[in-house]
């Protein structure tokens, strides 16, 4: 076995990943906060108002990164589900299921902020264009995966079934987008463009990119947190989990000590 596969093998073992995730998680959250604050400062204070949309466009600094994360989260989940189903890797099962709630949150934010942006801009909370419709379908797909995962008793079986559904859904998103596009050409009219013909200026671009980085980091932070819990659940009978549980047992009163002992 060469160094790389050995390294992957080691990283893929639940206790190792649990430890690494525990170390990585605060960094993800911390850096997300730093870049997020910088991005918001740039977006809310520094960037000028748009000549067409006024200040309402400032919603895109959270809307667009959330939309990216909604899609990214789904593909991250589906990729992990694929690995989990083909190679039966426990860590991938847990990772896939950990990314579903985070992705669903971002998709939900996208829908709500998009609606809040659409009301002053288009004069309507909702329109059935391809982007909005596929985003809605994406949210339903997420909810289906989460619902299926929680409806099955055995954690590993639940992760496999829900992962399978995620894989079935992954072909659906582009098809929905395409079909709604076709449908709108049939009906004419309500197609709306998110961005006007004007290209985005740098003072708007860098806050957007910073926010994209921040949301990625936050996504991985929550995914790591959920993965840690998921690994404890899936490996419930193993010795390394027993040690963590017993260490935690010793001190809900002294959380710092227990944290140190298993991180």
């Amino acid at each position: 076995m060469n160094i790389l596969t050995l390294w992957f093998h080691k990283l893929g073992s639940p206790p190792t990943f649990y430890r690494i995730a525990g170390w990585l998680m605060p960094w993800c959250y911390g850096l997300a906060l730093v870049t997020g604050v910088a991005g918001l400062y740039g977006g809310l204070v520094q960037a000028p108002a748009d000549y067409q949309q006024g200040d309402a466009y400032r919603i895109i600094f959270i809307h667009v990164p959330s939309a990216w994360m909604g899609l990214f989260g789904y593909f991250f989940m589906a990729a992990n589900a694929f690995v989990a189903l083909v190679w039966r890797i426990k860590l991938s099962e847990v990772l896939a299921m950990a990314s579903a709630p985070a992705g669903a949150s971002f998709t939900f934010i996208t829908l709500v902020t998009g609606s809040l942006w659409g009301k002053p801009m288009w004069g309507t909370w909702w329109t059935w264009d391809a982007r909005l419709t596929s985003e809605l379908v994406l949210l339903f797909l997420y909810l289906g995966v989460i619902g299926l995962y929680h409806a099955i008793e055995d954690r590993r079986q639940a992760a496999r079934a829900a992962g399978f559904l995620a894989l079935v859904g992954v072909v659906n998103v582009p098809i929905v987008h395409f079909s709604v596009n076709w449908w709108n050409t049939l009906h004419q009219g309500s197609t709306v463009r998110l961005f006007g013909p004007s290209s985005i200026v740098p003072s708007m671009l860098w806050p957007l990119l910073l926010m994209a980085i921040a949301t990625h980091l936050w996504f991985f932070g929550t995914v790591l947190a959920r993965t840690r819990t998921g690994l404890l659940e899936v490996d419930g009978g193993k010795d390394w989990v027993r040690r963590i549980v017993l260490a935690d047992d010793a001190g809900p009163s002294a959380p710092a000590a227990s944290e140190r002992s298993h991180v």
Partner: protein
Amino acid sequence: MSDFLAMGGYGGYVWGSYAVFFIVLAIDALAPRAQRRRVLSELRGRLLRRRPRPTQVP
């Protein structure tokens, strides 16, 4: 400052969006902690259930 809060008349929409963003993400980050606590207590119960057996059964 009030100009900043007013957002050129779109304050409700802009700040509403940001409120949703922060609330949802805060819930998303806090939920795993609650879940972790639940899983740990469940596992602890399982350990306690299992531990007495070797001592009590001869």
